[in-house]
């Protein structure tokens, strides 16, 4: 086990015991690994083969956490953090681009090329981010489900596992979240809110 692995494994453990400082020390480690992996995937990339969030998160987990020594809850926590980080990375990037369009200095992020590469996606990530915040106020679990599924690419079952709820609950919340977000996003697009 290398030292980064030891560090992350222990931080996860302390965090699940309520040490919030552990999360603050953990975040940069996971963030760094996600960025590094993203870069590696890109260099290997060939046409028709794109970076996958699921693979990214799983691989980061395998690399950063000592598999023989990890408690199940820690794994769930890890996926939770990774999903939030990917969301933050992408949304920050999207905001940066918006700022650039308005003539301000673009926020340079090293994940830039990751976001440029995948297929064209009409979805406005900044609007989605705001909508998710609004959704979280009403129903935090739903917002986390969207984070895990959309940003970390987890399946229904994996999401259920991470949140310790049943797949049926994930499905129901997912349906409601989609409906709500679609309506909210259409409203934002139309009303410019």
């Amino acid at each position, binding site marked *: 086990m290398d030292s980064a692995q030891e560090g992350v494994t222990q931080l996860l453990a302390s965090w699940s015991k309520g040490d919030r400082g552990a*999360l603050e020390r953990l975040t940069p480690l996971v963030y760094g690994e996600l960025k590094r992996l993203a870069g590696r995937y890109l260099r290997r990339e060939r046409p028709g083969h794109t970076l996958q969030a699921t693979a990214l998160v799983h691989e980061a987990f395998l690399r950063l956490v000592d598999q023989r020594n990890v*408690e199940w809850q820690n794994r769930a926590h890890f996926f939770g953090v990774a999903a939030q980080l990917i969301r933050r990375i992408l949304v920050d990037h999207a905001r940066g681009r918006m700022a650039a369009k308005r003539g301000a200095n673009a926020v340079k992020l090293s994940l830039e090329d990751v976001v440029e590469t995948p297929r064209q996606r009409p979805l406005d990530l900044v609007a989605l981010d705001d909508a998710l915040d609004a959704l979280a106020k009403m129903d935090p679990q739903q917002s986390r489900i969207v984070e895990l599924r959309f940003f970390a690419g987890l399946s229904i079952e994996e999401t259920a596992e991470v949140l310790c709820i049943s797949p049926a609950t994930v499905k129901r919340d997912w349906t409601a979240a989609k409906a709500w977000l679609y309506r909210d996003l259409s409203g934002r697009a139309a009303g410019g809110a």
Partner: protein
Amino acid sequence: MAPERWQKIKELLEACLERAATERDAWLETACCGDAELYREVRSLAESYEASGDLLEAPVLGNGEGPEQQEGRRVGPYRILREIGEGGMARVYLGVRADDASRRQVAIKVIKRGMDYEFILRRFRNESQILASLDHPNIARLLDGGTTGDGVPYFVMEYIDGPAIDRYCDERRLTIRERVELFRTVCAAVERAHRQGIVHRDIKPGNILVSADGTPKLLDFGIAKVMDPEGWTAADRTLTVQRLMTPEYASPEQVRGTAVSEATDVYSLGVLLYELLTGHRPYRLRSRAPHEMAQAICEVEPEKPSTAVKRVEEITRPQTGTREMVTPAQVGEARGMAPEKLRRSLEGDLDNIVLMAMRKEPERRYRSAAELAEDLGRYLEGRPVRARRDTLVYRTEKFLQRHRKASLAAVAAVPVLAPVALLTFFWARSEPELLRESSQLVRTAPFTTFQGAEKQPALSPDGSKIAFVWSGPEDENADIYVRPVEGGELFRLTTDVSEDVSPVWSPDGSRIAFLRTGKQDTAVFVSPSGGGVHRAVTEVYPTRVEAEGRHIDWSPDGRWLALADRAAAGEPFRIFLVDPETGAKAPLTEPPEGAVGDSGPAFSPDGKWISFLRSPSSGITELWVRPVEAGEERRVTHDGRSIISQTWSPDGRGLVFSSNRTGGFHLWVAPLWGGMPRRLPGIGEGASEAVFSRDGRRMAYSHFFVDANIWRLDVAGGAPRTAIASTQYDSSPQFSPDGKRVAFRSNRAGFHEIWVAGADGRDARQLTRFGGPLTGTPRWSPDGRWIAFDSRPEGQADIYRVPAEGGPVRRVTSQTSEDVVPSWSRDGKWIYFASSRSGEWQVWKAPVEGGTSVQVTQKGGFAAFESLDGRWLYYARGRSVPGVFRVPVEGGEEVPVVPEMKPGYWGYWAPARDGIYYAAPDEKGPGGGIFFLRFRERRPRRLISIDKPFAVADSAFALSPGGDMILFTLIDQRGSDLMLAEWSEAP
């Protein structure tokens, strides 16, 4: 929108979308009962859902593994036609061999990213010859395997077009007889593979498909082994089991990570048969939390199939995630039988056969799949089956094994006379006698009450003396002392300036071994027990000796010392056996690599077993046991908490250990032969390091204590003085809204409970009686009628409330997360609390009258209070993070209030009208000060200095409603004493 409203909307939306589009409006109108707004909202969402299409369905960062991208893609020499399934480890596609003119369809299993590819390929190469040789009409053949261009492993198998066996049986409404016959075919296929030395390891309905002509085919034979990294088997299996298998079908040995054999498949076949016969799962799991599953699988006896069919139960289909109600009528219908008739046809033989296949101990199941099939054959032919009910016969045999000389005649005769009584008796015999009601704890009394900490008592073999560790009246270095049990002269065995700890007597009582840690080295020493020359036996690796608990044990035959040691820093600690004469050392236990390791060994009274503590990571310790000779290591606890020390119960049937599994540290007894740990009755909180005399009538233990008291400070000035005090732990004061009473937490009656007293500390009255779990943080409701608090009666912390005048306790939260430190909104409608449910500590609020909780803080929050005017919410950032912040109650920007508030002092502040009072420790020395920071001023004012420590990490501060008085907790004393407990008859 209010959370309850949204909950309601969600439910209606789900139900609405299940209906045909044409029926929705009408249905919804009825369902909304005239609530037009509700109707509009759900309708609008249903429309949005229909319009949303694939919004968010594909993950944001590409989805190259999605089915649409894969279509037409090549995997080795195969071309993918479409995706047909997805599991935890792999996606399965339907494909054809591109160069095969016959266009025979195959199933291609492509391993997901994130798996250990190299390992899988290596394993596959080793196994492929054997797997490819498996040729049986009921086993889907493994045809090929390799890696894709990207290096991703895949396997190619015969493609079976048909439903899973459970669906097939239900769709065709097969009778019990037909199901048993189909199942026997499956057994025959499994038996064939076993004869070639292949164990399936993952038998479940989804791996048995039935083709159109009714032929069952087993999929994935041997695949589980190829995918299962052996390195994990010794470590925590949870992750592996969770990812590799469907936990519902995993055997106890798979969950424990011990040897997998043919018997493992027999077990899973038993689960499969259970489900085919009853339509229910053998275990009712409350959650998918792995430790709960593990516990059910390893410890809970499944209900008899004939009982299960009477159940109404909601079950989740693993493939689809859909929930279904299973009712007796429905189960009967799918089997072409009335429910009662079905029950009777299962009762007896089929009950016994299923439960025999599913026995916890592999060696007590059918010896092979063939034997299981044969017994089912006997059932079908109406002949007597081999399977018997477990209870009487098994327990009688067990009883006879233990008491060979006990009269055979009595055992033979008693069942006729009083079978029920006998059964109860057998049950009781398998339990440690410490837990029997007949063993009466006569008294517990202090043995030493010196200054400082006395710890690690060791009883001499004749029970007359106790050796222990003490730092002396001046609190210098630790030495070994010996004192007669009946009282008398204290004898100091060691005087060295080193730290001498963990004494243990030789079985003949002539010598005492102990650990000595000097400036550099740690070594085991042996000394004559009456004093004399200390002889070093062997050096051991330092560090762990400072921990609580006992570090050495001496085997009953006198030949070995057992202790924890390791060769180098990077290795886990393991238990070694050391020859006390020569110092020769041999490793005994095998902790997983990367673990903190093993410690605290204890020999069983017969000397054949050794129990020890194993710590997979810091802060978590579990009990393990293994034979002293070669044999399997077995885990006894599954708590995920801390265990300080452990020893054997005098009868050798259980382990007595000190654990915080329900809050404070208590002594627990874990039966070795199944059953949950139970608290050793009559012993209070803070007990650890228990040790028994040989006759079992006496137990010595250490009792660590903290005397914390509630102090009072008049804001106007003057010295602080005690307000509420006992010799125990009193803390968490809170004034009633009228300022006349104070609620607080105290363990003065044995356990931490909520108490109420007058503001002057008089007339203290106990309000709760949980009798064990840590119960604390009382908070008055604004009308003074209720007190909210947190407690952990089921192991997880939740918020409760109780009438301030006394009465039944009501539960406010019930999630599996930790919910602690409540506080009321000023309007009395909400209870704020800190919860870990989102994965980090945040402030949440729950409606007092029930309903969904809402997250309040986003950046971390703990211990919240609304301001007196109800406009602001104040909260600490976290349990061990600095800072107090506030936000408007209506929501808005967070503002720092006391950003420098020390970590761990989340319970040492109270908002006032024009500022905030708080406590902070001094940079040096044990004490600190109480401060007032006026809003809009930068510098806090020190009200008073205190030379005693605060109770860090506790809610320990209160401001009176009039703003004139502060209550706060101080630790007046802490230490550890030795105690003796005695039983009326040997436990």
